[in-house]
């Protein structure tokens, strides 16, 4: 089975800081693999362990370290789509991926539900739409049996179970099994695994095809909320009294 994992490198969510003067993130934040994408990769590796085949990780935009990590975890090869106009927005990212996916013709495309930086959750669905493939989002459990995926997905008020046959796009949540740590052997092996670098031109994509639909107008910080009234370190009776007085003063006690 040919399994593709879509992987994005994002600013380390633990190190992200907003710089009000720049109106942007502070520069130089370390980039790491998007967490949901690593869950998708883990699922892909487990699928390969079950049915055999090949796991290919693909990323749009700079992703050297994230792709290396994926290879060390066990992916067979990596593809990095880079260059002018990439990554652009979710639409152009999907466009570029689709151009490459049409060559690879994978059976399963795993991706993270969304990325921790832009958080649109659009790339997976856009890829599925452009390839006219079924898509199952919010995947929290799966089994592959008799050529069919039995999928458990998280929905608003519960869990939903679906069956779907490849080819299919699956979007992973972090309720799936934890991504494995790369082994030392995996890290050493990763050096010998192929990483293919492709530009938009290599994929036959014109500048027009890569026109983004979204214009980012910059970042801003939400206005901090007032802390409110905090009652602490007083005896319970007095605390109740104060709370009642407060609620009364706001006309909330009828």
């Amino acid at each position, binding site marked *: 089975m040919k399994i593709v994992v879509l992987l994005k490198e994002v600013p*380390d969510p633990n*190190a992200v*800081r907003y710089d009000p*003067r720049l109106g942007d993130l502070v520069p*130089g934040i*370390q980039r*790491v693999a998007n967490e949901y994408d690593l869950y998708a990769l883990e699922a892909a590796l487990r699928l390969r362990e079950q049915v055999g085949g090949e796991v290919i990780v693909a990323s749009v935009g700079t992703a050297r*370290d994230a792709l290396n*990590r994926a290879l*060390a975890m066990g992916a067979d090869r990596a593809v990095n789509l880079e260059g002018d106009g990439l990554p652009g927005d979710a639409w152009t990212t999907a466009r570029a991926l689709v151009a490459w996916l049409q060559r690879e013709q994978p059976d399963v495309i795993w991706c993270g539900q969304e990325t921790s930086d832009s958080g649109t959750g659009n790339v997976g669905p856009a890829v599925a739409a452009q390839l006219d493939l079924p898509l199952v989002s919010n995947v929290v459990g799966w089994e592959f049996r008799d050529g069919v995926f039995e999928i458990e997905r998280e929905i608003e008020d519960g869990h939903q179970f679906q069956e779907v046959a490849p080819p299919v796009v699956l979007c992973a949540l972090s309720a799936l099994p934890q991504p494995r*740590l*790369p*082994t*030392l*052997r995996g*890290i*050493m092996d990763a*050096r010998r695994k192929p990483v293919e670098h492709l530009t938009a031109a290599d994929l036959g994509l014109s500048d027009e095809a890569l026109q983004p639909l979204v214009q980012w107008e910059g970042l801003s910080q939400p206005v901090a909320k007032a802390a409110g009234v905090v009652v602490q370190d007083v005896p319970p009776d007095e605390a109740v009294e104060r709370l009642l007085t407060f609620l009364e003063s706001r006309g909330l006690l009828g």
Partner: protein
Amino acid sequence: MSQERVEVIVVGAGPAGVAAALTLARAGVEVVVLERGAYPGAKNVMGGILYRQPTEELVPGFWREAPLERAIVEQRYLLLTEEDALGVTYRTPAFGQPPYNAFSVLRAEWDRWFAQQAENAGALLATGVTVEDVLWEDGRIVGVRAGEQGELYADVVILADGANSLLAQKAGLTREWRPEEQALVAKELLRLSETEIERRFGVSAGHGVAIEAFGASTGGLLGYGFLYTNRDTVSVGTGALLSDLITHEVNVSDLLDRFKRHPAIAPLLEGAELVEYSAHLIPEGGWRALPTLFADGALVVGDAAGFVNPLSREGSNFAMISGKLAAETILEARAVGDFSAFALSRYWQKLEESFILPDLETIRNVTPFVHQRPYLLREYPEALTRAFQHYLTVDGTPKAQKYGTIIRELIRDLRPTRLLRDVLAGVFQLVR
């Protein structure tokens, strides 16, 4: 299953480990750096002063492209009492132009850049790998084990896993540290604008100030406070011996708060916004706590070896140069195919020929010296600031009378025989 092997494993991607890996990779040695953090610098805490000369021994001309904050043109030493400060300032434009003397750096950024140089030279950097133990075979260290991440074998393992090196302890190269051999440092990174830093510290763009403070900055404990200007942040911290913190039941972050509130420091930090807080151990056991630095198949470098000069507050240059010397030792050992403790003992010789072991030897008694004389950091600053206050206060007292009072008080407070004994003892410690 076949063994996964490389020529050299470096555990830890701090300045020592990266310097070793860089030197080895340049010589064409297959070297892997295993780093516990998600990236180099993720686990590091350093005050943030990087010296130019030792760094250039590894990356000539690094200051043209490395992520540096400010060239340090001014060094201030402060003796602090509860409210007062007495200081010495040295400033020279020479330190503000090429080739410079020292820079403030943000370790997370510097370490990543430095590690990148080693990667560019051909070293493999593997992050997120926690080495738990060394592997032994016939009494030789032959590799490392990283829990469920597996094992990796090598001709030599360089232990560069930092202060309180668990690996050196497990390998039996060092005993457990004693609390009087480690300082605990708390540090904050505070944001101010570039122009505000330049205004408050009286420096021009790209130039910065380093402040080192003793006395009440650590509540009279044996320790220090520091403040370094970065581009648009200030690194401020305090450190004290772990043993003192324990005995006096002082929390190092309270020390830092006290330092930040000191009247000589507070205005420099006013309105600055907290960006990051960190705390770290600094090995200060020095000469007396030296581990076994070489063994069959292993070398110990940097903080893991306790290579820090607590007197001059140098650490990163000891780390980088020890890493380089370890690498050079391995290159010589590799040329003859012998990685025994005997062959690797050249490392000790190289350390003796460098500044590292001589400096550790020079200052070997400084910590005990100050520790035996707690009044150095308590009574002397009090006496000296009092004398200056009298001297500078204009109050109608005839000068001869004023000078007389000052001298009498100084004699009373400083106790000249004790002072003379201390000065002589101090000089004798440092100069031979």
